């Protein structure tokens, strides 16, 4: 269990029993987290889950109501932001509009009373790192979003932080640029070998960049683990749903390695549950094979088929539960199909407060997905205008 990982080696930051509330609303509750030196750790969750709050507490912009922030073995609760060895990349870059690119990057260095020559060397080095050579004298307002983000990164890294905090740094960029910057950030982190604490609501971003992912909801950590861990062995229904697509069914552990759901007893690889314990069963859409109805373990009727390029995404009604299945085999709406699931594709989770909330695709449609995306984009644009 990493949450109590204080004993672990190389821990650079640990949060102990952090609680904070705004206007009587509890944002974080007795949160414990340790972060190893040099790792790329991502706090993942929907907006309002408290991930940015954690970042701001580490940066020193917020003081927790209770609990301790330990940095390098020392409690830093009373150390103001300007004296902490952490730096932040803000979602809106927060570049100083009255300074040019050079002066933005030199800002922290000048505060450290460095000599002009050293500053020049450092700024040049940083500009090279973020691939912005020759932009020294440009006004930051004349740069594109991606270039501004690079300046922000250079500015933060120029002061040699031990930990870099990134608050949804790519949220305001368009998709293609975001992909490029993801790779670039990862490579910078690998080169500099400093700790990155990255906040995002984009699970794909989290999966592709992180060493460790912390999935959060309602101010509590739901799951800490490697991307693979989180995808394959989600701790509860929330994590399973949040990361990728999942069919989450109510099941009963008959005994070790035997679980019953959808009226069928499946072989599985999980054990250690009580006999007849109610559990949540997760099956990823791509882990289901389809076959003739009579050959399947269970069977149902196809209600929707969408061609996705590499595969079809089909919704199958099995005993009233709508499954999502991703398969390369074509079937038509109305077809009766059977499905097969290998034992190691079945993941059993203990019942939690999230049980029964997720995992049924009865209201699913592409259109719905699209609308929710649009909303996100709109919100982003609005903020930009206000900015």
């Amino acid at each position, binding site marked *: 269990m990493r949450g109590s990982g204080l004993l672990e080696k190389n821990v650079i930051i640990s949060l102990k029993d952090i609680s904070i509330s705004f206007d009587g609303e509890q944002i974080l509750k007795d949160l414990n987290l340790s972060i190893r030196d040099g790792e790329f750790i991502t706090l993942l969750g929907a907006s309002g889950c408290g991930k940015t709050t954690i970042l701001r507490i580490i*940066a*020193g*912009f917020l003081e927790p109501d209770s609990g301790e922030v330990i940095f390098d073995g020392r409690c830093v609760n009373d150390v*103001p*932001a*300007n*004296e902490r060895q*952490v*730096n*932040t990349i*803000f*979602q*809106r870059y*927060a*570049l*100083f*509009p*009255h*300074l040019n690119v050079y002066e933005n990057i030199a*800002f*922290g260095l000048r*505060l*450290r009373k460095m000599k002009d020559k050293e500053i020049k060397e450092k700024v040049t080095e940083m500009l090279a790192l973020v691939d912005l050579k020759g932009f020294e004298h440009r*006004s930051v*307002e*004349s*740069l*594109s*979003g991606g270039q501004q983000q690079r300046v922000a990164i250079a*500015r*933060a890294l120029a*002061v040699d932080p031990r930990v870099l905090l990134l608050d949804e740094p790519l949220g305001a960029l368009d998709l293609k640029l975001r992909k490029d910057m993801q790779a670039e950030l990862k490579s910078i982190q690998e080169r500099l070998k400093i700790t990155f604490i990255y906040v995002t609501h984009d699970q794909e971003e989290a999966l592709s960049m992180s060493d460790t992912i912390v999935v959060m909801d309602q101010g509590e950590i739901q799951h800490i683990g490697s991307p693979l861990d989180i995808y394959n062995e989600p701790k509860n229904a929330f994590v399973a749903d949040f990361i990728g697509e999942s069919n989450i069914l109510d099941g009963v552990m008959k005994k070790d390695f035997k679980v019953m759901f959808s009226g069928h007893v499946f072989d599985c690889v999980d054990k250690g549950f009580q006999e007849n314990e109610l559990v949540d069963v997760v099956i990823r859409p791509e882990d289901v094979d389809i076959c003739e109805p009579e050959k399947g373990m269970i069977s149902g009727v196809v209600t929707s088929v969408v061609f996705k390029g590499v595969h079809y995404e089909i919704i199958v009604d099995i005993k009233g539960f709508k499954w999502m299945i991703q398969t390369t085999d074509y079937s038509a709406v109305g077809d009766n199909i059977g499905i097969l699931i290998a034992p190691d594709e079945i993941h059993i989770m203990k019942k939690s407060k999230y049980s029964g909330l997720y995992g049924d695709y009865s209201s699913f449609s592409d259109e719905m997905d699209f609308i929710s995306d649009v909303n996100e984009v709109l919100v982003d644009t609005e903020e930009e205008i*206000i*900015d």
Partner: protein
Amino acid sequence: MKNKITIPAKLYTVLIFIILYAPIAVLIFFSFNSSNSTSVFNEFSLRWYTELFNDTATIKALKNTLLLAVISSIISTVLGLITATGLHYSKTKWYKKSIMTANNIPMVNPDIVTGISMMLLFIFVGTILRQSGVLGFGTMLIAHITFELPYVILNILPRFKSMDKNLVEAAKDLGCTPVQAFFKVTLPYLSAEIFAAFVMAFTLSIDDFVISYFVSGPEFQTLPIRIYSMTKKRVTPDIYALSTLIFVTVFVLLVLSNYSQNKQKRRESMNENSIKNNMKNNIKNNMKNNMKDNIRIFTKISAFLSIVLLIFSLSIPVSASSVDDYPINIEYYKNSPYRGSTLNVYNWGEYISDGAEGSLNVNVYFEELTGIKVNYTNYDSNEDMYAKIKSGGANYDLIIPSDYMIARMIDENLLLKLDYANIPNFKYISNEYKSLYFDPKDEYSVTYTVGYVALIYNTKLVHEAPTSWTALWDKRYAGNILMFNNPRDAFAIAQLILGQDLNSTNPDDWQRAYDKLLEQKPVVRAYVMDEIYNIMESGAAALAPYYVGDFLTMQENNEDLAVAFPKEGANIFVDSMCIPKTAKNKGAAELYINYMCEPEISLANAEYICYATPNTAVLEMDKYSFKGDEILYPDASVTEDYQYFHNLPAETQALMSNLWGDLKVDGQSNISTYIGLAVFAIVMIMYAIYAFLKKKHREKFYD
């Protein structure tokens, strides 16, 4: 797409420009006039520009105005910035809201209310602290800061709101303490708005008349107050020159800032070409940059120029012209025990020889002679002066009210008895102007000037010299007759025709005089005061009653004008020097009165003001250009039955004001005004009902 400007659009633009700039064009044009007329252009001359720099009172007022504007706008900008910062970071919403509401009230409050309430407050605080005469530079500064502050806050706060709060965090993150972050990031971010707020506060301060008027004291008066108080005589054309200079300064600033903005734009557009990848962003940023640069450049230049102007005006030497010719008992003044003290003189505007056009600067000479510092400020009417004295907020040592006002002030115990032993030159005052009705025992006043009302006519339009005030009722001159635009003077003429006592308290008399004026109304072209100069000088009207002293000024610009002394008589008036109860330097004031009665000083004033002087020594001087002038000094038989105004009882005053109001607002137009207002109100109400019904109608379909 072609964007052609249509002809009506062009015409409209031209029209707007004419409306906006015609007044300024006229002002600039007449500032180069060699004469002081505002209707007749004699020849091109820079006379008024030279006059301006010799007009010490105006230059001093300008200096005061700029000084007050600079100090008050700096303080209010700093205070406003602090307030805006506090408001921005305050977390309590209702608190923020109520502060903003409180902040906005002074802006919608009429200036006059603000002015009066501040005056009362200052005087009240003064009373508590047992201080009289609190009004002065300090109170003006406080008042200016007070009315500038809301605008400063309103200028800065929105920019604060639009500021990314991460900016300050980023600064702290990179190592700034909160204070460093404020100075290194917040302040530069707000700089354009702070400067705009400063410039706005500066112009508001320069502009303000109403509030300044109420809270100003004896030793500090600003330009707007000075210009306003010039109405006793007329606004001197050096003010046109000053206004022209101010306008040109502002204009040059604008052109310069536009020029540099264009240069900036060209540079920006070159930038734009090199960054094609994010066009939308760039255009937005460019617009933002241009706006900001524009403000920055403009504010920088204007700040620079206003500082130059301030230094320039401060460095103008204040000097008196030589007075070697005037034998005055110099030792008497030199050895007065009041050397080093301050004397606050409160006089009508343009009512003293002030050094203009080579005349003697009476006040400066007095200062040189006695070592007493003279704070010379102006008022516009007896009533204004009375209000200031009565309020007790300002300590004046010497005032020059008119006859009826002296009567009132004596009644109300607002004047001090003079020690005539300190005023030996009182002997020069003609007996004719001693022991007048308001001061029968010569205890309170020394007469300064004498004037009376006469009938001015244009000989080109009126062929036989009128002998009676009834000429103003003559239908032959219908539409060519001007009449006083002040009730007491206007009623007096009707009363003279009716053979009444000008100070009658019988309501029937006033009613009859009213009927007489009503009868005259159809032939009257306009009821005017100062405008009379322009209209008569340009020959646009045939007949007008006015004060003789001012007739002489008019005649300089139009030789066709002549004056008649109607057989019914006229109103005669004197303005006399008095010392108010609140005086702090009575001895110096008496010295000043004595000085003003010195024949040479009296002469300078008499020449400058063009009113008759009561000083017998002056009347005999050969160099006095109005010596024996038949207009200023008509035969005693003409003036013997001329009447002074007395202070009217309150009820008679009220009756007169009401009747005057009725006269000015014609019964017909009165009703049509009300009808117009009623129609407007009905239309507004109907529209409100319509809008309400439409909304209700639509709401029915919402569910």
